[in-house]
């Protein structure tokens, strides 16, 4: 499979962006994504404030903590984390080329409109009760339709570009059409998964996901990690063995995951934690795999960051699943810490890396030293502080339920770190806005595409 994918001329993706409008498409998607990040971070700061100053709830009427939480979580996932991948798809399918490029903005608008409708529905007290699948009522129809709208755009771009250089070669055509077929499954999947009657396997000892479910989720991330470079850049053909190895391990782990089944199985079962432990092989494999591709020099900082976060995420994730450890941290801030490590640490740095690669020279908007270090050190500090809180909470549930000096101090530090994270994201949004307003930046970006 790796060889098949290696045949796709990755450069075609970059070559496809030949016009000013085309380059703006990525910048525009980045702007939408960042706007949602900033908004979701503002909500995050508000939530942190509410935990320290509960009187704030009185000011907000019925818009209480419980209603803001899905807004915060879903906007991070469906706004910040998803839209950079939409930009990636625009590039891969050549939707950023004329004449289809002008339809990319409407597709982003529809996506953002669905998020506005979703947020309104959560704030007005409409939720499904399923975390990250809170789509209900009208919003539950609108969001999959927004995804279908994007799919239609990509399908049209595929048809228009069928004979172009971007679709040169059988492998490229098969992969892209196969990808389109898979993408078409996502809207109905989201709609159906939001059904309250469907619920994933439950770990009977914690009420959380099973080891097999976690392995499944991580493998989805790994396949995305493996596919991303093919859409972003060209491979160094002399290092095909490493790529083959990575794909081979992925296939083996997928088979392992299938063999584990989907039952309600405890994390105390050795098969569960040992199979999840198999993910540790990706610690050396991922950096090695990424080193086999040629990257724009602007990506260096964020490439290192996302690989570091990955190397922190995988072992800690596994450790937190081990018997005894998970029993201690379940339902505590310790798992909040790990979620933040995953989303704000690993996923965010990966997405920024992707956007910098897509933007080329215009990737400077993410490369300001201050915001880079502010974001990463704050996230790290946040993770450590919350792990400490989770550890305390695991010993004594009253630590978080009956606020005392220690809990309030920890939550105040969290609030301050949240503010720093917000400021860093605001800095990126500010620069992305400047980028969209500046015609020079576009020409710089075009000049920088010759990787």
């Amino acid at each position, binding site marked *: 499979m790796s060889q098949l994918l290696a045949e796709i001329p990755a450069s075609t993706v970059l070559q496809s962006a030949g016009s000013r409008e085309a380059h703006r498409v990525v910048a525009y998607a980045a702007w939408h994504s960042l706007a949602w990040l900033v908004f979701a971070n503002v909500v995050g700061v508000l939530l942190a404030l*509410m*935990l320290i100053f*509960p009187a704030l*709830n*009185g*000011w907000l*009427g*019925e818009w*209480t*903590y*419980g209603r*803001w*939480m*899905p807004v915060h979580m879903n906007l991070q996932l469906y706004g910040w984390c998803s839209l950079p991948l939409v930009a990636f798809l625009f590039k891969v399918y050549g939707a950023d080329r004329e004449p289809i490029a002008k*339809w990319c*903005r*409407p*597709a982003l*608008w*529809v996506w953002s*409109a669905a998020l506005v*409708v979703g947020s309104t529905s959560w704030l007005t*007290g*409409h*939720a*499904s*009760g*399923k*975390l990250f699948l809170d789509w209900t*009522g*009208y919003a*539950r*129809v*609108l969001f999959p*339709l*927004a995804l279908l*709208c994007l799919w239609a755009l990509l399908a049209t771009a595929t048809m228009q570009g069928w004979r172009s250089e971007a679709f040169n070669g059988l492998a490229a055509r098969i992969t892209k059409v196969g990808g389109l077929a898979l993408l078409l499954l996502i809207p109905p999947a989201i709609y159906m998964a939001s059904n*309250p*009657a*469907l*619920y994933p396997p*439950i770990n*009977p*000892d*914690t*009420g*959380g996901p099973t080891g097999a479910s976690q392995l499944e989720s991580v493998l989805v991330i790994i396949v995305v990690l493996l596919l991303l470079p093919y859409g972003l850049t060209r491979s160094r053909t002399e290092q095909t063995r490493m790529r083959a190895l990575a794909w081979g391990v992925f296939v083996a782990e997928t088979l392992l995951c299938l063999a584990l089944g989907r039952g*309600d199985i405890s994390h105390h079962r050795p098969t569960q934690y040992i199979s999840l432990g198999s993910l540790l092989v990706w610690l050396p494999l991922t950096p090695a795999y990424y080193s086999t591709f040629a990257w724009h020099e602007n990506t260096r900082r964020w490439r290192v960051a996302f690989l570091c976060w990955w190397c922190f995420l995988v072992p800690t994730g596994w450790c937190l699943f081990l018997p005894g450890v998970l*029993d201690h941290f*379940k*339902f*505590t801030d310790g*798992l*909040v810490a790990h979620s933040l490590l995953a989303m704000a640490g690993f996923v965010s740095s990966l997405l920024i890396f992707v956007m910098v690669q897509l933007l080329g020279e215009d990737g400077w908007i993410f490369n300001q030293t201050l915001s880079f270090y502010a974001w990463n050190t704050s996230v790290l500090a946040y993770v450590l502080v919350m792990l400490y809180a989770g550890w305390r909470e695991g010993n*004594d*549930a*009253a630590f*978080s*339920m009956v*606020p005392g000096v220690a809990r309030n101090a920890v939550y105040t530090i969290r609030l301050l770190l949240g503010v720093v994270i917000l400021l860093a994201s605001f800095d990126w949004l500010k620069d992305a806005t400047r980028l969209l307003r500046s015609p020079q930046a576009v020409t710089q970006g075009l000049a920088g595409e010759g990787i």
Partner: protein
Amino acid sequence: MPQSKTERSGWRGVSLIAITYVYFLIFAQFAFLKRLAALGLAEAHLKPVMAAMAAGGMMVSLLAPRWRGFSAPEVRIRAALLGCAAAVFLSLLPLTFAASIAVSLLIGCSLGLLTVTLVTHLRRWLGEGSLLLKVGLGTGLGYFMCNVPTFFEADARAQAVAAGALCLVGFCCALKAPGSPAVCEETSGQAGSTSFWLVLIGFTALVWLDSAAFFIIQNSPGLKAGTWQGTAHLWSNGCLHFAAALGSAWLLRRRGSTWVLPLAYGALAAACLLLLRAEGLVAASVFYPIGVSLYSVALVAYPSLLASGSIEQRGRLAGWIYAVAGWAGSALGIGMGQNLGAVPPLFVAAAGLLILVPGSLAFLRRRRLEIAVTIAILLLAFGVDKLLDGGRAVQASDSAVERGRTVYVHEGCIHCHSQYVRPGTRDELMWGPVQTVAEVRRGTPPLIGNRRQGPDLSQVGSRRSALWLKAHFENPAEVSPASFMPSYSSLFQDRRGDDLVAYLQSLRPTDAAQHRKDEVFWHLSAIGESDHGQPLFHAYCATCHEADGPTRLRWAASFMRLPPNLSVEALAHVNPADSTEEQVNQFAQIIKFGIAGTDMPGHEYLSDRDISSLSLWLAQQRVSHSRTTNIASGESK
């Protein structure tokens, strides 16, 4: 003519703007009205007196730019300031109705002349550089001074005298106009593409909203107390005004009036709508000063610095703005406040239409493809949703429990409360007993949750009575000290609150008897100190068990049995014949797990040391009371 350093600094312009605002806000809007009330002219005579002020203001605002006599700006400014000061000192005399109309007319005419002349020729006094920021500074200082508590709360005479004195200071500031006439002719024309008449309509709508909200607050004691009474409120208002004025100047410099007016509208609209509800008062008190300062800076900056055209043209624009938006808008707003007592939401929406739509048209034209596609998909989703809705079996939630579960889901309780007791952990004793996965899966969806910031609720019905739950939803901290859960009292304005209580009450174990046995086997693992018991009693128990406990007073009629005085009264679950040690254990059991079938809740999350301290203290209280009683009865024998 070269300018000196002080002239270039522009302090004269900043001072003149601040003085004008202070005079208008503190004297014309406050002290003069209080003076009229003191003279007995406030009721029937108020309207004609104030109408005279508005008429004078409108007339002079429109005529001054067209009148050629005494055209030197400094002469006009000085004359206007003298007129203002004279009106102040005249108002202190024992005025008749006719005299008060004359004074009011003088105030209006002087203010009309002052405002129009000042903004038309403002550049003369603003020095060099950062002109908009200086306008913001002057406006912010003006509003800030008015909100200084000693000034704001001073009597009418003191306020009037201070305003008059400031006019004389202004007279000195305007003695010399340092800027050359050529400077005054300069026009920047940064106002953007929006036409003057649309800007005028926008200003009028904003002043209308501001004046209506101002009048309503000023004449409603409850609203007044919640917005601008008390030192803290006034300082906060002053700071908000000042910050918003500087923010407005910054925005005007970067974006012209296209951003400031919609933002000012947003803040004022929010304030007007929030004033409709008592609980929105605090938020309204934040939005109102922000909105007012945002547009007040623009009101000065637009005709003086942003509008394009010759000085004569800008003078006329200023005249229209102050006559129509300033005086007429203000009168209309006050009229609305007087007659309706509130700003109708429909009017707020209409004002929004006037302010936002013109500015949005260009954006709509530029983004018509995006807007068309988005609207099309929104409509398509609406149609699909209706189709699917029609196809779905109607699932009417008939029972209160089912409806309550929906409330639980919709309010996002899942984000703080789990519903999963982990087998073989401390959960079992605290929140137990354990449910099987099959039982958990019966809920659609299972509400397991992933974070506990409050207790697990999977069996809460066996641990908390309906009354406790309701009291807790109404005011969590009253029942559960240090609780950071928000109040859900609004749910009880309709049936949602009772449904939620019914749902939580339904969450009970199938085998409660076995769990009770486990509770009985529990014993304290740490020994506390009775001295620590008293503060714990006051924090956790007094609310129900003391005669003046807030929960007891509020829900006295609803308790199954009125909570007893724990020191004095006989207790059904603590045997006085038992040893003190036994009684301590009985207290500990009750504190930890509550009493099933009563309103007494458990305190599962308290540490054993705290439970021990509280139990020891309670047992001691009972012993010392019984000793006192015994001694007293012995003496009486």
